């Protein structure tokens, strides 16, 4: 009975969704409202106005930097909440043995390739304005490096390599940096976070700083969340 009820319920919702889908304009049509209202402006003027060839980065760092700032605050809040609920992991003395010792093949590969991964993460983050990529993507690669390290060499090892004392600075970096930039533009005489007031080279520098800051913060925050969750498993 319950199964039947849930099935009917889902079918109802599905029908509603299908009706919506039928009302949608054909995908990819240049005449769609999503392609005619704001997009031409972004595409024709975006690169000139923001000095960013990558329009996604341009939108994230300039046109919609409020959103990005809000998002950084959001993940900062998530981390703060997680710390309030479960607390930091603690470093242990000595190394506890791994449950499964990975094969030497995996270990040697990772030991050799980790520096290259980190370089790749830096590259993706730094060149966010000029090629595909950006701060978030670089940050996620960084986080995945740390997580892979923890999975292969053990959690204790990862805690020792990237201890909380080293991570804590980066976790709030981007929020701080956004606030600082916003206040600076206030002092120069514009609105909050209006980077157009600065000259082109200074702006480029700020944008680069934003990319690096966003990358480090999102990456380290994801790693920290992983550490907090992993800590539960150890205890």
């Amino acid at each position: 009975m319950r199964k039947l009820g849930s099935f009917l319920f889902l079918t109802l919702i599905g029908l509603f969704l299908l009706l919506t889908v039928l009302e949608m304009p054909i995908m990819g049509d240049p005449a769609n409202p999503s392609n005619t209202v704001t997009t031409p402006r972004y595409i024709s003027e975006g690169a000139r106005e923001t000095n960013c060839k990558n329009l996604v980065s341009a939108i994230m760092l300039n046109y919609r930097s409020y959103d990005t700032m809000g998002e950084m605050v959001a993940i900062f809040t998530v981390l703060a909440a997680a710390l309030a609920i479960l607390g930091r992991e603690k470093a242990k003395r000595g190394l506890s043995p791994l449950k499964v010792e990975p094969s030497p093949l995996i270990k040697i590969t990772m030991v050799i390739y980790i520096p290259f991964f980190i370089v790749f993460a830096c590259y993706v983050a730094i060149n966010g304005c000029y090629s595909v990529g950006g701060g978030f993507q670089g940050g996620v690669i960084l986080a995945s490096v740390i997580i892979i390290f923890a999975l292969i060499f053990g959690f204790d090892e990862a805690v020792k390599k990237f201890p909380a004392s080293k991570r804590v600075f980066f976790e709030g970096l981007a929020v701080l940096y956004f606030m600082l930039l916003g206040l600076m533009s206030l002092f120069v005489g514009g609105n909050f976070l209006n980077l157009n007031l600065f000259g082109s080279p200074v702006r480029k520098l700020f944008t680069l700083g934003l990319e690096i800051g966003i990358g480090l913060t999102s990456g380290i925050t994801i790693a920290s969340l992983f550490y907090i969750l992993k800590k539960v498993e150890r205890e």
Partner: protein
Amino acid sequence: MMITRVFSNLIYVASMILFLIGFYAVALRPNLIKKIIGINIMETSIFLFLIGIGNRKGGAAPLIVDGVKNYVNPLPQAVVLMALVVGVGTTALALILAVKLFEREEEEQL
């Protein structure tokens, strides 16, 4: 007419199906972890939907190259990128709350 529209909008249909799967897990599954997975699937379906809206036939990736005029809409991509990271955050928070809840229940049972 209707059939052609559905076939040209297959991505929306896929996103709809994903949404339904996610919704089923969230609403009708008792397991907390499965609910969280369901939230993630729903998120993914919305991302797919947004990216689909921003598509443009024959458009290049929104990276300005000389000589190319036709680009896809960069706005949904930027929004989805932000939503992805927020999604990671919410998932982590949800998991942590679930862990806490689990611990509390264990304590009460003792």
